[in-house]
């Protein structure tokens, strides 16, 4: 840590700039496409500009605006439930050793290792049995299957570097369990909750086949509408819906950015997982 702080800052600034360019540059063609009428090689810019794609994207026929609200609601619920389940699960995995822990870790990872369509078709049968198909509740619950591994693993990493002695100290000083959680545990693990929650939100946000199968066409989220046009080569409409599609993610990122600076000591890598 005896490096020249000015140099370190410059490097950090340059890295940040490169990262921003890397993230923003691919979005520029998307934005141009959404106003383009005919953009083909060898033209640098579209031959003419039009609002047709936006006119469709914002129309009742496309259903984009209705599904935007619904997609946000589903992603928020899936994130909240992921936190409620993932934090205690991560604590157990990060802090304690028990027989069969490796197996449990494998099982948690399984849904993101096994091909999605295989998981989806099996889950469809299970959800029909539970009477959860064709409902928003069912879609929220099924999104937990891909979101929980991320949430749990991030929290396991956080708790692997967490010392429960702080909690013992608070309790010995007379704090109630709630006070201990509120003033000792939560501040220490909050960055992990935010990172894990961000993962959970974005993973839920981008689900396609699970939403279609379990939602049975009654629950139309944005990816369902976006992929129709991305797959059919309609870059103009895919661009317009895509611009709407990235908004919540960018917003969530901006809101949580100050917790993600890496300066907080509690984000200590992903532990041994």
């Amino acid at each position, binding site marked *: 840590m005896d490096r020249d702080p000015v140099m370190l800052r410059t490097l950090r600034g340059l890295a940040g700039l490169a990262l921003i360019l890397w993230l923003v540059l691919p979005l520029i063609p998307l934005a141009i496409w959404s106003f*383009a*009428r*005919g*953009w*083909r*090689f*060898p033209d640098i810019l*579209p*031959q*003419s500009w*039009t609002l*047709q794609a936006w006119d*469709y994207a914002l129309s*009742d*026929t*496309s259903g984009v605006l209705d599904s935007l609200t619904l997609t946000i609601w589903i992603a928020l619920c899936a994130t909240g439930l992921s936190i409620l389940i993932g934090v205690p699960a991560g604590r157990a995995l990060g802090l304690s050793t028990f027989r069969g822990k490796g197996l449990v870790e494998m099982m948690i990872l399984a849904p993101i290792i096994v091909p999605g369509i295989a998981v989806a*078709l099996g889950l*469809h*049968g299970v959800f*029909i*049995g539970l009477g959860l*198909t*064709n409902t928003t509740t069912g879609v929220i619950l099924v999104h937990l299957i891909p979101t929980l591994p991320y949430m749990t693993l991030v929290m396991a990493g956080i708790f692997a570097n967490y010392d429960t002695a702080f909690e013992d100290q608070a309790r010995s000083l007379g704090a109630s369990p709630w006070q201990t959680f509120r003033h000792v545990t939560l501040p220490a693990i909050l960055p992990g909750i935010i990172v894990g929650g961000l993962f959970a939100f974005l993973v839920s946000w981008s689900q*396609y*086949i699970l939403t*279609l*199968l379990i939602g*049975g*066409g*009654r629950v*139309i989220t944005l990816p*369902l*509408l976006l*992929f*129709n*046009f991305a*797959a*059919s*080569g*309609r870059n*103009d*409409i895919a661009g317009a819906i895509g611009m709407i599609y990235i908004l919540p993610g960018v917003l969530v990122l901006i809101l949580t950015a100050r917790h993600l600076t890496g300066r907080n000591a509690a984000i200590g890598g992903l532990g041994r997982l």
Partner: protein
Amino acid sequence: MRPTAIALLTLSLSSPALVLADTSDGSALIGQDWDTIVEMARGGEVNWFMWGGSDTINRYVSDYVGGVLMDDYGITLNRIGLTDTTEAINIVLGEKEAGVTDAGAVDMIWINGENFRTMKQADLAWCGYTETLPNNVLIDWTNPAIANDFGVPVDGCEVPWNRAQFAFAYDTARTETPPRSIPELLDWIKANPGQFTYPAPPDFNGAVFVRHVFYHAAGGVEGLLGDFDQARYDAAAAATWDILNEIEPLLWREGATYPTSITQLNGLFANQEVAFTFDYDPSQFGLGVQSGQYPETVMSYGLTDGTIGNTNYTIIPFNSPNKAAALVLQNVLLSAEAQLEKALPEVWGTVPGIEVDRTPAEIQAAFAGIERHPSVVDPAELAQNALPELQAGWISAIEQGWIENVGR
């Protein structure tokens, strides 16, 4: 207070069941008086799953068809856009395996070919109702191209919606005279290396291109009609793989890779990487020029040795809970007015699935007065050299053979 709240809750929970007649029992509808079916369907909903990648087609379905259903019958049409029709079939298949026989999520699917074969073989389709539709009289079931869907007998399990015939497209600004037959095309590829490619089967359009080469290698389609025959297949297949492997190094990127979808080929064509694209539905080229996907100099054309035609249909799954509303929807789709609207180039420009000469005189006149989009080949001209589709056994054997002998 509390009893009232409970009563309200019960009412709100049970009221949809009071309004919507459950019409999952198809046998009660077959042969039923049409007015009775319409009354059973009134005020209900119908969930139609269909490929959703075209804004114009979506607008026609949601706005025009949905408008007619709502205004005339009080039926709510939910159009569910799919990226791949198989997704809807997977829903029905999963429901059948889980024992859902009368409360499925899917009331109707836009379908043909392999997906229809899957649904028919797995007993996922509701069949035998077509005579019940008043507009059934507009369908020519004696036409084998309508009574068979990619060689699979329809058997009253679906009704036609549109007809289509394969066509190529080229850019008049880049290519002077396009090759007008498969032999001419093969010569053209040899003279213009790197300028042609086709999507790898099992892509729908890539597979039909390969079948055109197969017909050519077999010396015509006549010997290929009827049930799958291994000996006849082997003879034609060997010649087909020879032709396709011979041109492979002369294809786009020396044939090291093939586009995986027709969308990708269309993109290569629009960006001048290849000279031709093709589609099972030539109306796509008119829509593509309208949306700016292609320049106005793009024209579609048929082949002198013929191109393969097909029909696409709408199907009602066996476990649809809204069969009466689905029937009303099918009848609206088959109506002369809805078929005319769909034929307008700015709406879609597709060929009707019904017989125009069975419609009222003023509709016939309106059909005759339609000005085709200049980029879309005249369907009548195309139809002069129409080739039949093979039976399903042939189609899957050719796809599998391509993957093993050419695509490997």
